[in-house]
């Protein structure tokens, strides 16, 4: 099981703040999860195609190749704009 969170503009675009995903053998990295989520429909495909999106695994910034295991909390979000 993966818990996936979305923030800010991306959260609004998807109309989704959080979802839970059954673990699947193919979804073993950030890039693979992103590809799988893009299959949920045209809105998801378009929003997740944004090259600037960032990802975090268990609250640390991650890269496309960062591996995922069951129980991980993954987040996708636009570039941060604090401060």
């Amino acid at each position, binding site marked *: 099981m993966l818990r996936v969170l979305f923030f800010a503009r991306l959260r609004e675009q998807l109309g989704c703040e959080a979802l839970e995903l059954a673990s699947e053998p193919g979804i073993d990295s950030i890039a693979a999860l992103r590809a799988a989520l893009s299959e949920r429909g045209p809105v998801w495909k378009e929003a997740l195609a944004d090259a600037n999106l960032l990802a975090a695994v268990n*609250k640390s*910034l991650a890269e496309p190749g960062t591996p995922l295991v069951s129980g991980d909390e993954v987040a996708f979000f636009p570039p941060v704009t604090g401060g």
Partner: protein
Amino acid sequence: MRVQEAAFSPDQLQRSLPAAGAVVTFTGNVRDAGAGGAVDSLQLEHYAGMTEHSLQAIAEEAAARWALAAAHVVHRVGRLDAGEAIVWVGVCAAHRAEAFAACEFIMDALKTRAPFWKKEHGPQGARWVDARASDVARAQRWQLPRTGDADGAPGG
């Protein structure tokens, strides 16, 4: 490190710093105009948990890199009016070079790595603030030849 909804006062935070030869503080205030026009207020969204983790990692990185007596960060979330303080960084060190470098490093890292997002509210409605390429460039200035950055590079 504090992430809070409540307003804070920079002068009170300044008073809370330990004694040291050099003290550098940064205060960021909500501007009354953004790229999209006049701004009445900001909505600050964050990724609770990761925010604290990220600010802590940035402060520890600063402490590992420079000889510091203290490094404090306070960042607000929730709704802020124009003119209100949104972030405060206070750094104490024996010498000013270290205090200036660490304070600016913390702000540059916070701007590109800490999960906060601003939404501006004004007469024209609401809009998400876009990240600035110049912030990424400023953060990259601090990259060491061999990086031991525990947070990993932004990407994904």
